[in-house]
């Protein structure tokens, strides 16, 4: 998927109501405000990322959204992870995820279901490699292994970008042939 609408459209066409529900109910970022003085992290010293809640959103919801123009999307997640240059910062991301999920189990449950729906989407369109990575992200989350989750998220972003590039190349070739 390039963006969330591709997934919704696909499930609508297939009449997969449960998957639609599971996917869309995690598209809104977490409601809960994070207590601001709680974290004093290096990641926040980057002016791009104003607060913990935004960072949490980039590590979760933004991945489901794909590329978006009007809200935080996967392009912001890519930028965030590219800016992570120290072990300390990686640990901070893990802490932020752990804290956010524990603060908000309601969101955690929805996010997990949305990842299952995303995995199902990739399988159904025949993109097993992406489905497999999403499956690993799910497993890591279920095992509360957030280091593994971030590892797999990084891997997903790399493969996702390659997939988007492939789609664009194919589209260009089709247009040239025409």
């Amino acid at each position, binding site marked *: 998927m390039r963006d969330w*609408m591709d997934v*919704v*459209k696909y499930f*609508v066409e297939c009449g997969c*109501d*449960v998957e*639609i*529900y599971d996917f*869309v*109910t*995690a*598209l*809104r*970022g*977490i*409601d*809960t*405000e994070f207590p601001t003085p709680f974290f004093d992290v290096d990641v926040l010293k980057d002016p791009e990322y104003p607060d913990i809640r935004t960072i949490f959103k980039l590590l979760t919801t933004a991945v489901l959204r794909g590329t978006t123009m*009007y*809200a935080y999307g996967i392009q912001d997640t890519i930028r965030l992870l590219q800016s992570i240059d120290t072990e300390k910062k990686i640990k901070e991301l893990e802490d932020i995820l752990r804290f956010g999920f524990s603060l*908000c189990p*309601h*969101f955690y449950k*929805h996010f997990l279901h949305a990842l299952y729906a995303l995995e199902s989407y990739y399988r159904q369109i025949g993109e097993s490699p992406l489905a497999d990575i999403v499956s690993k992200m799910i497993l890591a989350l279920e095992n509360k292994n957030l280091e593994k989750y971030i590892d797999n998220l990084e891997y997903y972003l790399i493969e996702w970008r390659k997939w988007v590039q492939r789609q664009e190349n194919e589209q260009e070739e089709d247009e040239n042939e025409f």
Partner: protein
Amino acid sequence: MSSDLNYTRIHKWNDVIEHFVLHRYKQSLWDYVTSLRGADIKVDNDNAVKALVTGFIRGIDSVAIVVDITTCYSYICSYHKQHLKNALDELLSSDQFSHFKAHARLGLNALASYYSDKNEKKLASLIVKMSTSLGTYNSEYLNALEEFFEEVKT
């Protein structure tokens, strides 16, 4: 309790999504889908917000979601209006709910546009009223909600 409602006039969340997808109303689709999840905040009385706001936005459910518009209707039928108003006043005035509330308002506006497309102008205007009053004039929100149910009674 909800058997006196005319279900054919009430939205189903999946039909609303399908409508926006078919017409490529991406912004409306976005506004609607991001209001379908209940608030993440767990406090006393949050079931009232879930039933009266999220339950209503979802409409009739076909995939066994616990809270939908029939739950919303049960609340309207079972509780005194002042009790419901107090619950909404207390919760929606809290900063914790501001993110949820903003999305709920946009979701209601998108839903109103769906009813308008379906030529249900009266219902659409009631939902617009609900959107503008949610969180600030909750008694008006509840009045419009009651009127909506009166309108769709068989």
